[in-house]
C-alpha cells in the first residue's frame, strides 16, 4: 500500500508506475474494495487527501478533497440546510467492509440513492475536478460554478469511472437546499406489475413525488419533499391521483426509514450473491417474474436488487433480454473471478471506452483487471 502525502507525491507515484508498466488501484476509504475480481495491483490510499477546500452555500458549490468521509460532507452541508441531492450512500455495511465511504469514492463509483429518479446521479452534480491522469499529469476540467459548458464535460466521464481514468485530488460538487419537510405515503399489498403502474402514475403526475420504491412485502412507497404547505397540499392530492391503485396511508418515520433504506441499499436482503439491475421501469415486473430469492426495487422500478444463492449469471442474461443490465455487487471470490462486474457493452462501445481510457491512461496504470472489461 502506498500512501502519498499530497497530490505531488501522488503524481510522482503514478508517473513512475506508468514508466515501469506497473498497475495501481486507487482507494478512498476502501468501502467498495469487495466489488470486482481480486487483483494484484499496488493499492494507493488517497487518505491523506482529505478536507473541505471551499464551501459557499449561497453559490450552491462545495469543493472537497476525495478522501473526505461522505458522512462528514453530508453533515457539513446539512448544517447549512443543504444536501447532496443525488443521495449517495455507504456500501460498507452491505459488503461487510471495515471502512467508510468517501466523497471521492461515491462519485467515482457513481453512487446515487432513492432521489436519483428525480434529482439525478453523481454525474449530474460533479461540476469540476482536478485529477492526476495515468501520465502522472495534473489537469483540471469543468469549473466551480453551477452553469458551465466550456470544453468537454469531463466531469461526466470521471463520475462513475471507478478510478480508471485518473486520481481525483479535488472535486467541486453542486449542492442543493435540503427539503424542509418529508413525508412518506404507502400502498399495501401490490404485485410488482401493480406497483409499477402506481409508481408510474405518481411520478408522471404533478404531485411531484421525489422518490418511489417497492418492496417484496408488497409495500409501495412514495416520498413527498419540500416546503410544508406544499407537502401538505400534495399529500391531499396524491390519494386522488392513485385512487385506482389502492388506499394510500402515511407512514411514520419508524416504518418508512427502514423501508427506504432497504430499497436504496439492499439492506436486509439475504443471499450470498447480490445483483443490482438497472432497466426500464416497465420491465421490472418481468425481471421479477419467477424470481425465487429476495428482492427490492427503487427508482420507480428502474432499479431492482436481487439476492440469491445461485452462483451463475442467469440474472445478467435475463436483464439483457429485457434491455437492461445487471451489476454484480456482492459474491464469493470464485464467482467474481468468473463473472465480470458490469454487463458487457457492444463491441463497438467497449472499443470506444478502451480508447477513451487510453486517452487518460496510455500505459494502463489503472488497468487492474478488477472489472474484466
Amino acid at each position, binding site marked *: 500500500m502506498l500512501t502519498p502525502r499530497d497530490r505531488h507525491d501522488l503524481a510522482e507515484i503514478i508517473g513512475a508506475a506508468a514508466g515501469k508498466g506497473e498497475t495501481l488501484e486507487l482507494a478512498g476509504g476502501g468501502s467498495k474494495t469487495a466489488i470486482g475480481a481480486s487483483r494484484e495491483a499496488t493499492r494507493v490510499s488517497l487518505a491523506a487527501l482529505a478536507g473541505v477546500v471551499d464551501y459557499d452555500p449561497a453559490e*450552491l458549490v462545495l469543493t472537497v478533497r476525495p478522501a473526505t468521509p461522505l458522512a462528514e460532507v453530508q453533515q457539513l452541508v446539512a448544517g447549512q440546510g443543504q444536501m447532496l441531492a443525488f443521495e449517495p450512500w455507504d456500501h460498507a455495511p452491505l459488503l461487510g467492509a471495515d471502512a467508510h465511504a468517501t466523497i471521492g469514492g461515491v462519485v467515482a463509483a457513481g453512487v446515487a440513492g432513492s432521489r436519483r429518479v428525480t434529482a439525478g446521479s453523481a454525474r449530474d452534480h460533479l461540476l469540476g475536478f482536478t485529477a492526476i491522469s495515468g501520465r502522472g499529469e495534473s*489537469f483540471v476540467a469543468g469549473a466551480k*460554478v453551477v452553469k*458551465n459548458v466550456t470544453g468537454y464535460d469531463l466531469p461526466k466521464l470521471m463520475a462513475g469511472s471507478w478510478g480508471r481514468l485518473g486520481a481525483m485530488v479535488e472535486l467541486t460538487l453542486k449542492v442543493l*437546499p435540503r427539503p424542509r419537510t418529508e413525508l412518506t405515503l404507502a400502498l399495501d399489498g401490490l404485485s410488482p406489475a401493480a406497483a409499477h403502474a402506481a409508481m408510474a402514475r405518481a411520478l408522471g403526475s404533478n404531485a411531484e413525488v421525489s422518490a418511489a420504491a417497492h418492496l417484496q412485502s408488497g409495500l409501495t412507497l412514495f416520498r413527498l419533499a419540500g416546503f410544508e*404547505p*406544499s407537502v401538505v397540499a400534495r399529500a391531499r392530492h396524491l390519494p386522488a391521483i392513485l385512487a385506482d391503485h389502492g388506499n394510500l396511508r402515511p407512514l411514520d418515520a419508524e416504518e418508512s426509514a427502514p423501508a427506504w433504506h432497504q430499497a436504496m441499499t439492499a439492506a436486509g436482503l439475504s443471499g450470498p450473491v447480490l445483483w443490482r439491475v438497472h432497466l426500464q421501469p416497465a420491465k421490472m415486473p418481468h425481471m421479477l417474474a419467477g424470481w425465487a430469492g429476495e428482492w427490492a426495487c427503487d427508482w420507480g422500478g428502474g432499479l431492482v436488487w436481487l439476492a440469491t444463492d445461485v452462483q451463475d449469471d442467469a440474472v445478467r442474461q435475463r436483464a439483457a433480454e429485457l434491455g437492461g443490465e445487471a451489476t454484480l455487487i456482492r459474491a464469493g471470490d470464485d464467482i467474481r473471478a468468473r463473472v465480470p462486474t458490469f454487463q458487457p457493452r457492444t463491441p463497438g*462501445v467497449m472499443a*470506444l471506452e478502451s480508447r477513451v481510457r487510453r*486517452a487518460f491512461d496510455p500505459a494502463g496504470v489503472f488497468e487492474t483487471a478488477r472489472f474484466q472489461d
Partner: protein
Amino acid sequence: MPAPDQSVLARRDEIAAALRAIVPGEGVITAEHELRPYESDGLTAYRQPPMLVVLPETTAQVSRVLAWCQANGVKVVPRGSGTSLSGGALPLADAVLLGMGKFKRVIEVNYEDRFAVVQPGVTNLAVTQAVEARGFYYAPDPSSQIACSIGGNVAENSGGVHCLKYGLTTNNVLGVELVLMDGEVVRLGGTHLDPAGLDLLGVVVGSEGLLGVVTEVTVRILPRPETARAVLLGFPDPELAGACVAQVIAEGIIPAGMEMMDKPAIHAAEAFVKVGYPLDVGALLIVEVDGPSAECDHLIEEVARIANENGAVTARVSRDEPERLAFWAGRKAAFPAVGRISPDYYCMDGTIPRRRLPEVLQRMEELSQSYGLGVANVFHAGDGNLHPLILYDANVPGELHKAEEFGNDILRLCVEVGGVLTGEHGVGVEKRDLMPAMFAEADLRQQQRVKCAFDPDLLLNPGKVFPTLHRCAELGRMHVHHGEVRFPELPRF
C-alpha cells in the same frame, strides 16, 4: 480558421458525385446560390459558404457519408437548425456541411416511463408539443426553442431560463444513437438510468459536434407543474438585487427562473414591449416559482418578504397567466429590444460566482467607458450566467473589432473572478482563442486526447473549441524511461 486545403477543393466534383451515390436525389447541394443559406449560424458576424451540403435522411446514409469522408480525408461540419450563438455550425470552405434537418420524426413517446425517442432534427419546442396533450413537457428551453433542434441541443448542452431547477440538456437526455467519423454506429445510454461503463453519453453531450453525429435522441419528459407564478421586483441597484438572489437560495428556495436586468436593458425592453416595467430602478428581478398552487403561494410570499428585506422598491406579483407572461415578455424581448436602440449588438455568455456580480458590473462599466461602447445586461441570476449585450455599429469602421475586444475582456474578467467563458452558448469559433484564459495547456491537451479517441484524423468539425489543433500522434507521445509499455496494440492519445 485553418487555410482551405486546395487539393480537397480540386476534388469537389468527385466528392459531390460520391456523396450523391450515397444520398440520391436532391440530398447533395452544390449550386452557389443554394449554399448561401448555410454560410453562417446564429453568430452572423462569421460567414463562410461550405464546399457542399449533404442532407441525409437515414442513419445508414450518415454512416456511409462519414465513412467515405474519413476514407478520403474530407472534413465534415455537422449542422442542426443553425441557431448556434458561438459559430458551432460555421462551415469551412473545404468541408462537407452535414445538415440533419431531414431527421424530423418523433419515433416513440412512453408516458408510463416518461421518455421520448426523437430524431435530432426535431425542434426543441416540437418535443414539448408532441407530449403536452398528456400533461408532459421537455424541460430545457433555450430561447431559440421554436427553431433549434434537439440534435443541436445535445451538441451544445443547451440550457434556458429554467435550468437552475431543471438542469441542462445533459441532465435530461437518457441516450443517443451516435455515428462516429469512421461510420461506426454506437448506442450510448438507452431507456434506463445509469448504464454500465464509462459515461460516454455525458461527454458527447456538449461536445459541439466534434465527437460524432447524433442520429437519435432519447429524452426524459416531465409532468407539467400544476401552476406557475412570477413576481417582478425592482431594486435601486444590482448589488441589492444580487443580495436578494443570494438570500432566496440561502433560504432553500430554488425558483424555476430568476432573471435580472440592469437599467439599460430595462429601458430598452420597456420601450419595445411596454409591459409596465418600473423605469426608476437600477435593477429588475423576475422570480418565477412553479409547482402545486399551495407551494407557489407560499414561495411567492417568501420571495416578496426576502426582497423587502433587501431593499426592493417595487414588487408586483402576477395575478393571472396573462400577467405572468407579460412579466416575461420584456425579458424575452430583451435582445431584439436592444437591437432597436443600437444598429448591432454582440451577446456574451459568461458565468460568474454570483457574489462577484457588483464588482463585475462595475468593471464592465469601466470597460464600456474605455471602449466607448454601451452595454446592457441580462442575467440568469440564479446560476450566475451573465449575458452582456455590447452595443455597436458594424457600419462604423473598426467598431465590430472593438466590440469583440470588449467582449473578450468581459470573458477574461469572468474567468478572473472564478467563473467561465461560456455558461450555455458553447465555445465554437467565437471563444476558441480564449480557452487558454481558463485552461492550462495540460488541461486542453487532455480534452483533445478524448477527441482523438473518437476522431483520430480530426476531420469532424475542426477549427472549433480548441485554439490549437495538435495531431493525435503528437498528443499520444509518452516519455517512457525504461520498462515495457502495456497494451502495445492500442493507439495512444
